[in-house]
């Protein structure tokens, strides 16, 4: 009983915001808290003239983006497998994954708007435009720019998850067998490999779908505003006590919507696999199509270059003094923005870093504790639980968690913000560490124990140093996740914690493009620095160890 207590406590700490948060959303929606949120929430939100439009827009952008992400991932996998381009991409994608959504969104606007960098580059020489064209708008009315932003940001996530699974699937052997039987490579993939791969990436796909359907910051920056997506619409209601019930009811409906979409995916899976099984027996070999591979490579290149170009445009704007349409590049530069000790950059950077470090550290300690408990049989193996925060819409969880914080007066406190960030860093940290923890050869610990070392000594001298690589990776990813968080800080921070994410989204409406760019660059650089450090630190550790060993062996020889 007692040996299970730490695990129970840890689970309670993690589950508390989820359960209380969902309750805090559900109760006001049902009219059970007339003090905080008077009125019949469901009636109010359903009667609002914007509700239907906002819901349809969310469905269109969320499902459209998810479908494209899945499609592009498959196309990229098939066409890039065993190619030289993949070697380059697999090194480029992880850092891109670490760049926050909001920064990419802002960069994309600066890139593809009618007066954006692309048109400036081509005008007036090629296009003949001396003024920005009025043929399109960013953000556009149909949600296309939002879909584009989601696709270029989420495809690398799914692609990397899928690629990490390939080594366990014997892809090359399968391809060889298929080829000897006369099947085209595309058929080999669709008949042999994808059916094995899909179950392994399904959770990631669902996480991406939940995100696409409910994201707030990216939809604010890239989505239509009138009406906006459902979650953005609900955000505009939640701060007014008169419509808090409506916002809560809308958040409940959004959670239901996401659940229904999950169910639809499961049904579709069944349908597709039945059809695929029938077709697999048909024996049709298909024709080889090198065109398909070229198309896939182009698509992957285009998507990655869009992200990189967006970041590059941000970098340019952050050192610009004057850059008018249709000049191809700035006419006056201002590098001093980065070096003048500008408090509008430094303060939010510090605020972001302290929250991120604390949330990452908390996640590391919690994850290591849990995995050690699990290893010693004091905690069950329940990986699914940790992913709940990623599958529940942020607004559905955080509206209620914010209401709870109001009640006990905990909103605005730094610890409340860190606690809420921890909820979102924990899944990634445990995902990375769990694999490494379970794979680590227990012989190391056994040997150390046999030599008389106690539990803590073995943990700190043997196990943690052996796992330094995944530990540093997990820490870097936790930093990246926290740096990108917008809603938790906004809703729980009470305005007291102005992180880069908050500053970036708030200032997008008005502040100078040059400052917005600087904020976005800074928000992208922080996680990148964490990634570089995570790469270098294990090497530095092993180099130090090697030096020490060399020294020790020399001394041993001398003596």
């Amino acid at each position, binding site marked *: 009983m007692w040996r299970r207590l730490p695990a129970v406590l840890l689970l309670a700490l993690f589950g508390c915001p989820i359960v209380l948060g969902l309750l805090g959303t559900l109760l006001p929606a049902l009219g059970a808290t007339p003090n905080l949120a008077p009125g019949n929430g469901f009636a109010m939100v359903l009667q609002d003239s914007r509700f239907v439009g906002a819901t349809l827009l969310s469905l269109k952008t969320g499902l459209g983006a998810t479908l494209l992400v899945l499609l592009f991932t498959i196309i990229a996998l098939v066409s890039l497998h065993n190619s030289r381009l993949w070697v380059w991409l697999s090194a480029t994608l992880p850092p891109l994954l670490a760049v926050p959504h909001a920064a990419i969104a802002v960069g994309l606007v600066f890139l593809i708007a009618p007066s954006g960098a692309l048109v400036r580059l081509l005008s007036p020489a090629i296009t003949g435009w001396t003024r920005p064209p009025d043929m399109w708008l960013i953000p556009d009315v149909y949600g296309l720019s939002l879909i584009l932003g989601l696709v270029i940001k989420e495809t690398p996530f799914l692609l990397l998850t899928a690629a990490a699974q390939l080594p366990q699937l014997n892809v090359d052997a399968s391809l060889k067998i298929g080829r000897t039987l006369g099947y085209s490579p595309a058929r080999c993939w669709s008949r042999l490999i994808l059916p094995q791969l899909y179950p392994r990436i399904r959770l990631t796909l669902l996480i991406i779908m939940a995100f696409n359907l409910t994201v707030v910051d990216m939809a604010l920056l890239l989505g239509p505003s009138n009406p906006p997506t459902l979650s953005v619409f609900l955000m505009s209601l939640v*701060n007014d*006590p008169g419509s808090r019930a409506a916002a809560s009811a809308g958040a409940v409906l959004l959670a239901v919507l996401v659940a229904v979409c999950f169910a639809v995916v499961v049904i579709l899976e069944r349908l597709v696999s039945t059809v695929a099984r029938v077709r697999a027996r048909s024996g049709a070999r298909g024709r080889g199509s090198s065109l398909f591979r070229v198309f896939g490579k182009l698509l992957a290149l285009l998507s990655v270059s869009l992200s990189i170009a967006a970041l590059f445009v941000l970098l340019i704007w952050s050192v610009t003094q004057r850059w008018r349409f249709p000049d191809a590049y700035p006419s006056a530069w201002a590098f001093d923005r980065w070096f003048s000790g500008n408090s509008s950059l430094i303060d939010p950077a510090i605020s972001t870093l302290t929250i991120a470090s604390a949330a990452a550290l908390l996640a590391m300690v919690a994850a290591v504790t849990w995995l050690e408990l699990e290893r010693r049989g004091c905690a069950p193996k329940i990986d699914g639980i940790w992913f709940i925060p990623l599958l529940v819409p942020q607004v559905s969880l955080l509206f209620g968690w914010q209401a709870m914080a109001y009640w006990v007066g905990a909103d605005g406190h730094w610890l409340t913000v860190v606690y809420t960030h921890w909820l979102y860093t924990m899944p990634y940290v445990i995902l990375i560490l769990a694999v490494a923890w379970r794979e680590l050869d227990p012989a190391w610990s056994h040997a150390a124990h046999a030599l008389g070392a106690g539990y803590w000594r073995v943990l700190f001298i043997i196990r943690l140093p052996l796992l330094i690589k995944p530990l540093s990776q997990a820490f870097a990813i936790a930093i990246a996740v926290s740096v990108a968080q917008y809603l938790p800080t906004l809703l729980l921070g009470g305005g007291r914690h102005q992180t880069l994410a908050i500053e970036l989204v708030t200032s997008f409406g008005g502040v100078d493009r040059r400052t917005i760019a600087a904020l976005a660059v800074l928000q992208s650089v922080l996680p990148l620095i964490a990634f570089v450090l995570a790469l270098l630190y294990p090497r530095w550790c092993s180099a130090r160890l090697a030096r020490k060993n060399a020294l020790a062996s020399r001394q041993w020889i001398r003596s």
Partner: protein
Amino acid sequence: MISLKALASQRRTLVPALLLAAFCSSAVAVEPDSLWSEVTEAAKGQTVYFNAWGGSERINEYLAWSAEQLESRYQVKLEHVKVGDIADIVGQLEAASLVGRDEGGNVDLMWVNGENFAALKNTDLLWGAFADNLPNRNLVQDSPSIRADFSVPVEGLESPWGGAQLVFIVDTAAVPSSPKSAEALLEFVKEGGRFAYPAPPAFHGTTLVKQFLLEVLDGDEAASAALALPVEQADFDNITKPLWDYLDQLHPELRGAGKSWPISAEMTRQLLDDGEVDIALSFNPNEASAAVQNDQLPDSVRTYVFDKGTIGNTHFVTIPWNATAKAGAMVVANFLLSPEAQARKADPAFWGEPTVLDITAMDADQRALFEAVDLGVWALPIEEGNNVLPEPHASWAAALEAAWLERYGQ
């Protein structure tokens, strides 16, 4: 209702209050009418969380300068909490009041006017008549918009900070003759001119819609009189019908065809610089000067108002009932009214917003601060600045926004 709330809050706050009293008996609670020396003494070491719209770089920098001054002169730490829409903060205060948090609130000072002030005043969420107790109050001009905020009496509950008037910034390189009425603006967009305004409830969008309402009602005295009274007393549908007729014609011709809207007036200024629109909106007659000097607009821009004038108002700062650092907030409000702070604010090099002080009542040194300010050719010419129309009653804003969203928000 009020007494229930008071009872509940007494029970909640009694124990912490006793504890607090036991531990820091030296701290003096200030009242809105405390002696000023007591206020400055109590303010020392306090941190004031000033919730103010954070969408303008120059305003943010001006507040950063104010923070430095306040720290060194009064040992008051000013934290600018950058807000997207102050109505959100009004909502948070209402929520705090509903859960009985009558002390230790997150907001010490906030930047408000119009319907947000009216909402706070109506729900009794303001601290008191602190503004009449500020030493610099004596320098403030006497004007209708300072006595009543969108027709709602101020009564010392908020302290004036700056004057504003709806103005249009035009790029004369693209537009030789500016459209100076709602009718002319419609002609202008029909002939291919590029214009867009932020969708209500964005503040500037709502103001422009009110401006259009005044223009289309011009000559209808009964309707114009109804605008000065609460909207509940008016025949809203009848009065606003010409407005919707006008907007129905205007919207298809706008950039974005009435389906996509700029987020804010600042964004229209950015679009003007990019050439995506020909005319931008601002609530600051000197905005263009500041922007040109800051490399954000071309030299060819000029500022103007409609021939029959445009809506003007005053904006204020106020202290919520549950503020933590009330003394500090008063010191900040008083500093913001000082001739030095107001003169710097009036200078387009820093912010460039009209002062609320009465320059003629100042001594020579103080006046010199204002006379040194160069507004530049890009700002609204002084003589046009007198052409100010009053705001409709505060209740019209919400009604117009709701009706606008009902019609065009889907």
